[in-house]
């Protein structure tokens, strides 16, 4: 469909836009959002997304609990967050409107599916009166569109021809909405048409109906005069390269495959399903042609055990879960620690405690992965900072695991897992070469021709990785404290203390061998430092950007390594008058920093299951950094 048809409408140039689709779980909002994202990416914008859906598979239709939404922020600039307040809200039913209206920008655009505003639905949404009829929407630009009706009309022919029934036809209404919004923002829809044809290749009638509805939406915008403006967000000046959109879970899966390829080790992935980590398993299960073995275990303990066994056998062994599953793995993680085998444990965090908020994001497992083991059992902990960073963090985690012979924890979260960002595809050959991180021991390692499994590399303190099957290196591992070098069981008091110190020393060694900590301090004269970790990167970046535009001197550092903490931290934190640490938990990193540096780090904590908004953080940093007056 060519873009020329919209020529007669006024085209407003914008630098960025935030669109939120909201509807019932059954309305296909995630799919609509995904499609709009792809179209937007192809249009060359930088973007970030925020899917949000209920914990139930199908919460009761029409209720507030059943609302599912997808927000997309796109821009002609580098952006960092899925946007704070949407410019446009598409509300497929009253519940969606009720739940999301308050988030909308003042004066923003609301597109409602009037057909869904029935008495019954209004009631389910908790409206006493129809918001279309009282003053609820007076401050917004309201577009009342009979989306269902339009869809059915567009598909009249299909129904008559018996190609699909009315219910099936109705289900295409999300495509009509997508067509309309695509028209508004000059997003080409041909890619989606192709995608629909592929997806429903086996059911051409359904494919055709969806395409018809999509086009009808576009045409509706184009034809009716209801929409006075269209909007254009020019392509961002992204660095040249090939791009794709990627979610955190997908990036994590691909990163693991990349680590396998770059280490020439077969990937073993043992896991038990849990939201929001399961998709990593689903992704990897599709990649068996990379030599990937995926194993759905009977529970998380078994998954963790299988990974220890596979690491013992010489695989790149990985497991993932979310908080409750990680809790179950902790005992076996202790065994992994004391046996000094390389492996990765991924924690895609969600709201806690207990079952908590399974589909919402949170950063509250930091302490669990640092300290949730019996005894002194230090494990390196890394955290991904953006969806695409999940790819790179996998490689970094594999590097540390393989180099130092240790389990490594990787933290992601529900937000990273499910949201997407454009990612410039890396040059494969420039990814870290992990084959140099380790080699399998095949020969005795003592002058007397014997082999001892705990003789260490002086530089890394790594012990030998000698695989079953290697003649002459037979040895036994286990969870009881080991004698230095020989690895025999030892109850000797001094040995235990020395081994405990060695385990910490190895952790510090990892820190000492990291490149210097990068601090973003554009003019080098900032007074306030914002420090963060994990998925808060986007909002922190955006908040700092806002503050700098207001002339505030603010610096920023974002930690990828949570254990060991970077050795430069003391010095870095000491340089600033005020240090602010925003987290989606109750101040866990802040506590670590305070204990380590004795700097009065200011903690800003919010656990609502939602990522921070940039404006929210800007206000917080302003307040801590420059006082209430701001």
């Amino acid at each position: 469909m060519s873009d020329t048809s919209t020529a007669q409408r006024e085209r407003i140039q914008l630098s960025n836009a935030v669109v939120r689709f909201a509807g019932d779980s059954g309305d296909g909002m995630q799919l609509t959002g995904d499609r709009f994202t792809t179209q937007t990416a192809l249009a060359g914008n930088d973007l970030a997304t925020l899917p949000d859906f209920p914990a139930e598979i199908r919460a009761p239709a029409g209720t507030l609990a059943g609302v599912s939404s997808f927000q997309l922020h796109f821009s002609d600039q580098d952006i960092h967050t899925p946007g704070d307040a949407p410019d446009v809200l598409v509300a497929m039913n009253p519940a969606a409107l009720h739940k999301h209206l308050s988030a909308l920008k003042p004066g923003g655009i609301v597109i409602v599916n009037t057909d869904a505003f029935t008495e019954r639905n209004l009631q389910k949404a908790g409206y006493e009166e129809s918001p279309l009829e009282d003053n609820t929407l007076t401050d917004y630009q309201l577009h009342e569109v009979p989306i269902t009706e339009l869809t059915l009309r567009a598909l009249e022919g299909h129904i008559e021809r018996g190609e699909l029934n009315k219910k099936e036809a109705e289900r295409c209404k999300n495509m009509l909405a997508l067509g309309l919004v695509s028209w508004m923002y000059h997003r080409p829809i041909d890619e989606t048409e192709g995608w629909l044809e592929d997806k429903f290749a086996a059911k051409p009638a359904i494919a055709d109906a969806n395409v018809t509805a999509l086009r009808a939406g576009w045409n509706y915008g184009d034809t009716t005069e209801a929409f006075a403006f269209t909007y254009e967000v020019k392509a961002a000046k992204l660095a040249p390269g090939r791009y794709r959109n990627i979610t955190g879970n997908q990036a994590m899966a691909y990163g693991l495959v990349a680590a396998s390829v770059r280490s020439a080790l077969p990937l073993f992935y043992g896991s038990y399903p849990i939201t929001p980590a399961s998709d990593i398993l689903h992704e990897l299960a599709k990649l068996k042609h990379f030599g990937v073995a995926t194993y759905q275990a009977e529970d998380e303990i078994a998954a963790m055990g299988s990974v220890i066994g596979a690491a013992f056998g010489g695989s790149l062994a990985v497991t993932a879960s979310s908080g409750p599953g990680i809790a179950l793995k902790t005992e076996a993680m202790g065994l992994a620690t004391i046996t000094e085998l390389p492996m990765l444990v991924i924690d895609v965090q969600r709201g806690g405690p207990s079952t908590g908020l399974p589909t919402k994001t949170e950063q509250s497992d930091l302490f669990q992965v640092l300290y949730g083991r019996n005894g002194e059992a230090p494990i390196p902990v890394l955290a991904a900072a953006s969806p695409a960073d999940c790819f790179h963090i996998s490689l970094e985690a594999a590097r540390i695991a393989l180099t130092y012979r240790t389990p490594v924890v990787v933290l992601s979260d529900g937000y990273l897992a499910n949201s997407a960002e454009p990612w410039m595809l890396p040059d494969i050959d420039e990814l870290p070469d992990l084959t140099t991180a380790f080699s399998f021991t095949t020969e005795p390692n003592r002058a007397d021709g014997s082999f001892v499994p705990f003789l260490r590399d002086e530089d890394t303190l790594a012990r030998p990785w000698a695989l079953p099957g290697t003649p002459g290196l037979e040895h036994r591992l286990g969870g009881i404290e080991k004698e230095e070098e020989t690895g025999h069981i030892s109850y000797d008091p001094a040995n235990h203390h020395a081994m405990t110190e060695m385990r910490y020393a190895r952790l510090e060694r990892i820190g000492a061998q990291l490149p210097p900590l990068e601090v973003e301090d554009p003019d080098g004269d900032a007074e306030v430092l914002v420090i963060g970790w994990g998925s808060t990167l986007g909002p922190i970046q955006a908040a700092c950007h806002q503050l700098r535009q207001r002339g505030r001197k603010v610096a920023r550092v974002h930690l990828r390594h949570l254990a060991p903490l970077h050795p430069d931290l003391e010095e870095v934190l000491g340089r600033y008058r005020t240090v602010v640490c925003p987290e989606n938990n109750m101040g866990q990193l802040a506590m670590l920093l305070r204990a380590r540096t004795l700097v009065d780090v200011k903690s800003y904590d919010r656990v609502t299951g939602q990522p921070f908004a940039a404006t929210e953080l800007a206000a917080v940093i302003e307040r801590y950094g420059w006082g209430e007056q701001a």
Partner: protein
Amino acid sequence: MTTNERTLTKRDFTSDREVRWCPGCGDYAILATVQSLLAEVGAVPEKTVFISGIGCSSRFPYYMDTYGFHSIHGRAPTLATGLAITRPDLDIWIVTGDGDGLSIGGNHLMHTLRRNVNVNILLFNNEIYGLTKGQYSPTSPLGSTHKSTPMGSLDRPINPVSLALGVEATFVGRSIDTDRKHLTEVLKGAYEHRGSSFVEIYQNCNIFNDGAFAALKDPDKKDLNQIRLQAGEPITFGPDGERAVVAESDGSMSIVPTEEAGDRVVVHDPARDEPTTAFALSRLALNPTGPTPIGIFRDVDRPVYDDQLRAQVDAAKQQRGEGELTALLDSGNVWDVL
């Protein structure tokens, strides 16, 4: 199951670690039998891995001059599964106890058996927690008085053979620590079986539960009480074979004088497709205090989990070509910024 070109002896499977079980413990006899067996069948030390949980019995790997892993309580099958999937070239043995394997580790045992992972599981059943100094276990007879049950235990014991058959284990055997010949025979069967083999070994803990298997071991009682299952043979026992096992019309088994049994005597066939008959046999003894079947209850060929998993990987490579990283990243919707 690996084989060896070298001729090895028991010593080649004996590590230099001092054996630390209590003097008189049944574990010694099992250790010696396993070491001899491996030499006899031509196992390769470096291709052999012993994985255990926690308990007295779980110290076993330290004494074997093979690869080994003394893991955590109840979880040995989980490590073994990860290893079996990724390393088809190894012979993997699991050593576990009645507490380790049936109490805390019951679920892993069950799932490993139903998956038919290629491992040999030896359950040392001493009807007690040895390492933690004498609490009752899931196999202790009802009413056992031990440290945590001074007024007698109340949990009806698990029959490990029934349990294994309930989840359709493909190889199920039972033997006795000190009966070297019988134990060797059953273990050899387990070793040769591809898929999961499960062997319950009655093991005397002379410190906390001495004599638990006296009925099957005492010279003057054992002939009366050992029902030795032998493939292809009618199931009779007693000093002069005077007792026989027959099937009732409802599918259950009972013991009758051989002379009354006629052609109702069950002929043992471990290869029967369904575990039903073997299950019925396992019900003959609820505790090993009377006539108790020992030997190989079941031995059937079934697809092996890890073999099939690797076959899927191979098939995927065949169908789609070896994975290519650039192609993977390039898949889906990509666009170029110039």
